[in-house]
């Protein structure tokens, strides 16, 4: 009770400082939220692209069913393999002859010239990973020829990986920056009230009596900042969705991250939690005693 009263007094007395503290946390949470949504979008976009990268191994004519099965099992056992698909000669024929013209060409050859093939998908995609797998496959006696995604797609994957690293590092920097900023703001609050703190110490206030309001204040600022930060992300997301729809015609409002179920429950809770945690960590990191 006393503490809450203290905190309320602090709010009343230094609304200016409180605004800065809350504002900083708002910016932080908005940044982290934005980063999170951005990252999720990239991840989403990435799976889309990655699914396109497959390594196809065309098998030797007349390879026996048994040795093919051995090959598939061998590849399935490799740690980097996500999925292996088998396409028989017939399957290849069916696929190739879907359009009339090609069917004519193939049929004119008299027999099915298309080889059986297996398609390998990898768990993670790096240029090196793809090349290693291709080399691996090429070394198998059952394999005639190996093909994999065009050079451009590989480049794309590499660039995505670079972006991934960049966003990760950026995210990390932001979290560190946030804690620094928050604890600095609380330090500033302590600094601005150094006279008060000093006087309270002189009158016999214990350390916890003096620190408690600052910590509670940090937590409350964090909570409010989290709420406001969520609001900012919510607003910006909605504006951007409208804008995107207008510009590209894509309606992303069904995307799971921005859906009400996710955004208004889980994401809001996360923002409040993160804000409160930031406020708490910041106030813990701040010095209890003002500089002389």
């Amino acid at each position: 009770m006393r503490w809450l009263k203290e905190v309320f007094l602090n709010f009343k007395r230094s609304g200016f400082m409180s605004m800065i503290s809350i504002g900083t946390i708002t910016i932080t949470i908005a940044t982290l939220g934005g980063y999170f949504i951005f990252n999720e979008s990239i991840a989403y976009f990435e799976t889309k692209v990655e699914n396109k990268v497959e390594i196809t191994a065309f098998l030797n004519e007349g390879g026996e069913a048994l040795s093919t099965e051995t090959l598939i099992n061998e590849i399935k056992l490799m740690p980097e393999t996500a999925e292996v698909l088998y396409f028989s000669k017939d399957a290849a024929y069916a696929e190739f002859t879907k359009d009339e013209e090609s069917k004519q060409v193939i049929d004119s050859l008299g027999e099915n010239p298309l080889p059986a093939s297996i398609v390998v998908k990898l768990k993670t995609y790096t240029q090196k990973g793809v090349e290693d797998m291709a080399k691996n496959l090429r070394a198998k006696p059952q394999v005639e020829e190996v093909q994999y995604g065009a050079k451009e797609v590989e480049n794309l994957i590499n660039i995505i990986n670079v972006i991934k690293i960049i966003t990760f590092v950026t995210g990390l920097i932001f979290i560190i920056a946030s804690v620094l900023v928050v604890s600095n703001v609380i330090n500033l609050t302590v600094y601005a009230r150094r006279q008060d703190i000093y006087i309270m110490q002189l009158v016999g206030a214990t350390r916890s009596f003096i620190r408690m309001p600052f910590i509670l204040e940090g937590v409350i600022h964090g909570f409010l900042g989290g709420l406001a930060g969520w609001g900012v992300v919510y607003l910006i997301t909605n504006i951007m969705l409208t804008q995107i729809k207008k510009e590209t015609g894509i309606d992303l409002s069904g995307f799971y991250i921005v859906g009400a179920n996710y955004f208004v429950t889980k994401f809001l809770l996360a923002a409040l939690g993160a804000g409160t945690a930031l406020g708490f960590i910041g106030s813990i990191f701040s010095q209890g005693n003002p500089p002389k």
Partner: protein
Amino acid sequence: MIKFNRVFKVYEKNIKALDDINIEIAKGEFVFLAGPSGAGKSTILKLLYREEIPTMGTIFIDNKEITHLNEHKMALYRRSMGFVFQDFKLLFDRTVFENIALPLVITGISEAYTKRRVAEMIEKKGLKGKEKLNPWQLSCGEKQRVAIARAVITSPPVILADEPTGNLDEESAWELMKWFLELSGKGTTIIFATHNRNIMEKYGKRIIRLKEGKVVEV
């Protein structure tokens, strides 16, 4: 009992504020601390209050040495004293009421009692009507009265008063003295630093006279 044993205090830049102080003050005594500006009166009170630590020597309160108290013990120790600071040291963004209540609030006394006690004190000190003002809205004499009220609100066994009449008009000053003598009569130890010769001479109490950090008369 308060005892200074060979106490020296040297501030930054080699400023010698106290130079071999040896004094004893009995429980319940009323003592004046006199001496010209810069003689070391405030420094003696600050040492007693643990606002400063002696450069050398020891200070005993009730035979306990107070130089090595930890932070928590120091807070509790300070609660056993009331200090009227020469520069008041009021919280500028709290009301008069809150300032006077502070020593009760930090000890966790019930709100109801605090309210009653502070209201009484405000009445007694002639601060009625100013409860809701902040210290910067007070005249200097009023600030001093708030500082005095805060110092005595917990009825501490020891009161340290640093020039508590400096900003009071004569009438208020005499009133304060009457009141302090009353507290002294009830067993409160009072150490009273002042320049005011009129006041010191009137009561025939012990005067510890300082000059350039030395005791020149006990």
